[in-house]
């Protein structure tokens, strides 16, 4: 006879992380711990100009005055910031001019992840800036992009080659004193991506970056800066998988987006870092500050995220709607299983007139996990006719997990219209039986139902991501549903 649902749900917890492998590559490491010397070491390693070092040092000094935030609905052991190695880079034997020169083991890693750095990407129209641990290994399509005047490179390269742009915009959306983790990142960030789309240019390819945490005991602190100048458009994809690791790893990234007048930026993430084992040991601690500013009128920033990984996710991609008639969007699917904890959501800050924002959040909890939506919709006095629609749905699998919603609304203008809808549901026995009666196994049925539930969000992902995301949802809940 058929297994009862709880048994099936427990099996979910027995499915192992499928991306748990580890590449042995010689690493160039900083000493353990964090001090001004560490900051100087990192800056020197990267051959940074004085202003950059100064930015880091100021951030570091400010960080020392801060304490970790405690308001999130998460619990973890104290992070020992002095036990972390703050810089790791694959040792370069020499300058690389072609793929053939890339460490074969590294290429193998990418292959396992399904990332091809070769010409196939060109055919699929994707330019890739692959980041392993801290240093960009290879950037493709720079030539194609440069024809359009698009700058797409590692953050380090941008510091060297486009210092004016970096100086102008770095920290302008997420100031280094914004929060504890932002300050930490600003002090020790290793690398990341930089992207500038000039006036009136519609970026011809989807830009994508794969981040990957690879060295044991190494925190990863990327920093991404995307600037879309007037009338520009870009779609940017960030995808992550990380190898298995026993100790918890800290990850504190910053993403800043600037959209000028009439510009549009679409930022998509699939995050699948190691979530820890079924007992709740290990896994990535993911404390990320992502924020965009719609600086000019009629600009638009759209965040779409599929979060299945990490032991702890602390992440609130936000949009500051400064320009009149600007639009902010947030579409999210967050899956937690076993002992994962997610506290995620969005902030929409309406400053301009006729600004519009949409928040669609779909939480899926299984095992003994906790999944929280936390959001803020703020409308200031002068933001006439601001509109927001928020929808926060929770889907529970089994009876040991938790779903929580913390929506905050602050409206100072009476012409604003703010709507908030929330639902909580379970996959019903009726749905499961209905699927099974058609010959669909429990596992496939859960995948089907969950993907149906998340469809509203998945449809906002670029095609190649959507397929991956659908698989990921099914894999993350393997054994838990039919």
């Amino acid at each position, binding site marked *: *006879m058929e297994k009862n649902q709880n048994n099936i749900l427990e099996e979910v917890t027995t499915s192992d992380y499928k991306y748990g492998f580890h590449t042995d590559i010689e690493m160039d490491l900083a000493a353990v711990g964090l001090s001004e010397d560490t900051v100087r070491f990192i800056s020197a390693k990267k051959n940074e100009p004085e202003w950059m070092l100064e930015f880091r040092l100021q951030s570091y000094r400010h960080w020392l005055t801060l304490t970790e935030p405690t308001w999130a609905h998460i619990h973890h052991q104290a992070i020992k910031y002095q036990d972390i190695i703050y810089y790791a880079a694959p040792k370069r034997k020499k300058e690389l001019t072609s793929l053939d020169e890339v460490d074969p083991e590294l290429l193998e890693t990418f292959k396992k992840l399904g990332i091809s750095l070769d010409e196939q990407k060109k055919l699929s129209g994707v330019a890739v800036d692959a980041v392993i641990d801290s240093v960009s290994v290879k950037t493709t399509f720079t030539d194609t992009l440069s024809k359009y005047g698009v700058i797409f490179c590692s953050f380090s390269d941008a510091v060297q080659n486009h210092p004016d742009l970096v100086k102008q915009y770095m920290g302008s959306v997420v100031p280094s004193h914004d929060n504890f983790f932002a300050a930490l990142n600003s002090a020790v960030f290793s690398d990341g991506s930089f992207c500038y789309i000039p006036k009136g240019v519609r970026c011809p390819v989807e830009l994508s970056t794969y981040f990957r945490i690879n060295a044991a005991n190494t925190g990863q602190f990327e920093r991404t800066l995307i600037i879309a100048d007037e009338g520009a458009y870009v779609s940017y994809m960030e995808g992550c998988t990380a190898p298995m690791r026993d100790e918890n790893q800290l990850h504190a990234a910053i993403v800043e987006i600037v959209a000028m007048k009439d510009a549009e930026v679409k930022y998509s993430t699939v995050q699948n870092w190691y979530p820890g084992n079924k007992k709740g040991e290990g896994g990535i601690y993911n404390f990320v500050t992502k924020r965009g500013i719609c600086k000019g009128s009629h600009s638009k920033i759209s965040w779409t995220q599929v979060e299945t990984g990490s032991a702890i996710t602390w992440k609130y991609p936000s949009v500051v709607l400064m320009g009149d008639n600007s639009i902010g969007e947030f579409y999210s699917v967050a899956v937690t299983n076993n002992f994962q904890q997610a506290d995620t959501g969005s902030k929409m800050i309406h400053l301009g007139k006729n600004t519009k924002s949409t928040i669609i959040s779909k939480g899926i909890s299984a095992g003994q996990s906790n999944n929280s939506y936390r959001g803020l919709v703020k409308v200031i006095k002068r933001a006439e006719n601001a509109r927001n629609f928020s929808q926060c749905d929770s889907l529970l699998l089994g009876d040991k997990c938790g779903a929580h919603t913390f929506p905050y609304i602050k409206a100072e203008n009476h012409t604003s219209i703010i709507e908030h809808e929330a639902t909580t549901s379970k996959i*019903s026995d*009726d749905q499961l039986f209905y*699927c099974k*009666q058609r*010959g*669909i196994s429990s596992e496939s049925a859960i995948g*089907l139902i969950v993907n149906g*539930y998340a469809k509203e969000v998945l449809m906002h992902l670029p095609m190649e991501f959507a397929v991956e995301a659908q698989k990921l949802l099914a894999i993350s809940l393997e054994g838990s549903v039919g």
Partner: protein
Amino acid sequence: MLSIRNLKVSIKGKEILKGINLEVKAGEVHAIMGPNGTGKSTLAYVIAGREGYEVTEGEIIFKGRNILDLSPEERACEGLFLGFQYPVEIPGVSITNFLRTAINEQRKYKGLDPVPAVEFLAKMEEKKQLLELQEKLASRSVNEGFSGGEKKKNEIFQMAMLEPSLAILDETDSGLDIDALRIVATGVNKLRRPDNATIVITHYQRLLEYIIPDVVHVLFDGRIVKSGGKELALLLEEKGYEWIRSES
């Protein structure tokens, strides 16, 4: 095709089916009638393998094999189809996606490769026409926002796509207006073949004006108390279930 022998089923210790015997051969249409609460739906669910029902005695032989140890999905893959009295909504899952998943899982069970997309879509088209269904059905989410009639038509459509050996239609006529009823019945008749069989569960004679059964059974208080030809349905309609009650 199907033979049920002395089937006794309890729910939470209460006996619902008290010794059912039923023999259905390939090519036949059987109707099971009876008042509410006599165990008709229980019988359908037990054959399909739904949990929560305790089989205390008897066996269900389907295509020569006792299926009581098989899971619901295995039974489905063996060729058993249940048309639900209350079809379930699955938000966000299109009928196309749902059926393709179902067909491919059934093919996998039989050791076959997934159905090629072109072939699948052609089949969808063919069956839609057969059942006179609207074009847009396929892209809608499974049963979401469907009217009662649409849900039932969708059940018949799934049956047409999955081509089961044995289909059990549980109160498929309930909640249908006369046009929908006719479409459902026409579908069932068109899908009728010498190598498949259908069990129609209903408590009105009305459906049987459109689907002519070979055998009619009357289920009462957990037992089949009467079996006969299609005239039995008419007799029931005329005399009412009180007649059965007084006879049993």
